């Protein structure tokens, strides 16, 4: 049986009396992208920092390619690319120099170094900036260099903490392309993200964590079929805030409506049973209630719906 690429056993981290991570057991291997989801403070970054030995577990252990991170960080991190917390790069270095340092310390052979650096700089679209000092770069440009640094040695395991942080929409799309490229090259990517659309686009599996506890870890397909309730969902945009609870009750009582959630003062999420006819009738009824309906749309992602409901359960 092959050794898992990433494994955590009863991984627990406490900061004083606060438990940031509680007995996390995870095992992942294979060439794929695993999305790590959860609200702020859920324990995502804590987990990734534990995996890269930036912080130490209170209990439990974590392993990369079968090697204990705590007992032998040097060997365990040899074949891993890590990007955590958008690090700062020494301001006086150029991307070429920064990546040269990383490649040198990681043992990338001199004969391959120049090509590898050029390749990753091309991947993150920073080749034109290769000889400019990092100190003058924007946050997004620095993040691109950080991504390049995580990939310069062509690792088999890549750990990314919110890689799209600070990037513009084009940059975000490029990160997705990089992740897809890594999957094609048989790499395992373990990536935390707040952007559910990004996770839906590139991840094969998702792990959801909240308050330090793993809620589920499964394929995106299984998660969707297991946690989605099968009812069609629509988001209703309103021209003015819906403050009247009685009116909200009337919406919930409309024929076919199975759930009604006020996501924002001007946005309702409705689930209903039935097909297109039921939807047509529902829309007519909504308009008749004079709620100020000004838009109707399907939720951006089924995952978002599942995410919100799972997190709400724990509150």
């Amino acid at each position, binding site marked *: 049986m092959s050794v898992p690429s990433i494994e955590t*056993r009863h991984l627990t981290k406490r900061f004083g009396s606060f438990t940031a991570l509680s007995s996390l057991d995870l095992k992942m291997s294979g060439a794929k992208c695993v999305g790590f989801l959860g609200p702020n403070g859920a324990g995502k970054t804590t987990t990734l920092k534990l995996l890269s030995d*930036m*912080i*130490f577990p209170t209990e439990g252990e974590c392993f990369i390619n079968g090697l204990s991170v705590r007992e032998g960080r040097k060997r365990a991190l040899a074949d891993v690319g890590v990007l955590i917390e958008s690090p*700062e790069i020494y301001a006086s*270095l150029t991307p070429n120099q920064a990546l040269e340092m990383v490649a040198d310390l990681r043992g990338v*052979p001199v004969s391959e170094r120049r090509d590898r650096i050029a390749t990753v700089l091309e991947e993150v679209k920073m080749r034109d900036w290769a000889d400019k000092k990092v100190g003058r770069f924007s946050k997004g440009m620095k993040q691109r260099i950080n991504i390049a640094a995580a990939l310069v040695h062509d690792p088999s395991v890549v750990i990314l903490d919110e890689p799209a942080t600070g990037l513009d929409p084009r940059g975000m799309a490029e990160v997705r392309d990089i992740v897809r490229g890594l999957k094609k090259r048989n790499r395992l990517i373990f990536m935390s993200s707040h952007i559910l659309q990004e996770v839906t686009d590139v991840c094969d599996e998702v792990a959801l964590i909240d308050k330090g506890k793993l809620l589920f870890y499964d394929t995106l397909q299984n998660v969707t079929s297991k946690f989605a309730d099968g009812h069609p969902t629509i988001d209703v945009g309103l021209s003015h805030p819906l403050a009247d609870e009685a009116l909200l009750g009337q919406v919930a009582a409309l024929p076919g409506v199975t759930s009604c959630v006020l996501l924002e003062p001007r946005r309702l999420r409705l689930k209903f049973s039935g097909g297109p006819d039921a939807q047509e009738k529902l829309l007519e009824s909504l308009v008749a209630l004079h709620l100020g309906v000004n838009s109707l749309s399907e939720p951006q992602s089924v995952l978002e719906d599942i995410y919100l409901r799972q997190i709400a359960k724990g509150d």
Partner: protein
Amino acid sequence: MAESPVSSESADPVSPRLQVPGTVDQIIKLTRYQLREYLSSRRFVALVGIVVVIAAIITFIVADLQSNAAVKALLASPDAFYGSFWGGGAGFVVVLSAVFFGGDAIAGEFQNKTGYFLMGLPIRRSAIYIGKYIAAFLASASMLLLYLVLLLLNGVHYFGASAFPWQFLPSLALALVYLMAVLGTTFLFSSLFKTSAYGFVLTAILFLIGFGLLQTLITSVVKIEPWMIISYANGAIGDVFAPTINWGLSGTVTVTKVPLGRGGGFDTVTSYTPGVAEGVVIMLAYFILTAIAGLYLFEREEFT
């Protein structure tokens, strides 16, 4: 245990072509990169400027006040000149350089988040600490050498190129041992705090004021040899230029009678001068203890 729900083709195993360099090799590499960072930094340029200004002040004072009795005494022999200006100035340059290069060496990794760039690499924390320490040592030593060269240019003007006292070699070695100790302490403070300013301020206050004050208190109030104070030990840097040198492991005690003024009578003032070997032992002890403590702290410091 939440396991990977799908058994798919395995990710490529650890690439056999990638051989992570040995720890010593990594320390050398890190030292090289860190030194390059120091040498291209603004603080390096600023420190060069400060050292040049210090040397310029010495040049001006000596040239302008040659008729002054005190300056005359300094110009009486190369030993007196170098003993005074090297002995006094080297310690100051050491402290200044250590504060500039070591004050934020570790704390800055936390505060500026540059540490996150290094911590994901397969490198021992001790290798990072040692590499940064050696780089700071070399950068600081270059300042000491600059000061030495500027002072020698002054000395050559007054005494000629041939009047190069042999004591310079042991004195320079002592200054480098002092640098090791001061940097060790600076790195310890830098590991202790996650804010660079604390490391800077604490080291500067302690070495420029604190230790001197303690030394005076111990000598005059407790009336014992202040062997535990590093500022006492570094006196050996200038003392090797004295007419008689105490190379030993114990200090020299000098009791001086001081007249009490109109009423007549005398009081006695006791002063202590460290033996050279004693100075070395004290400075090495500071270096070893602070290095162990600093490394211990950095090994356990979390990048939260």
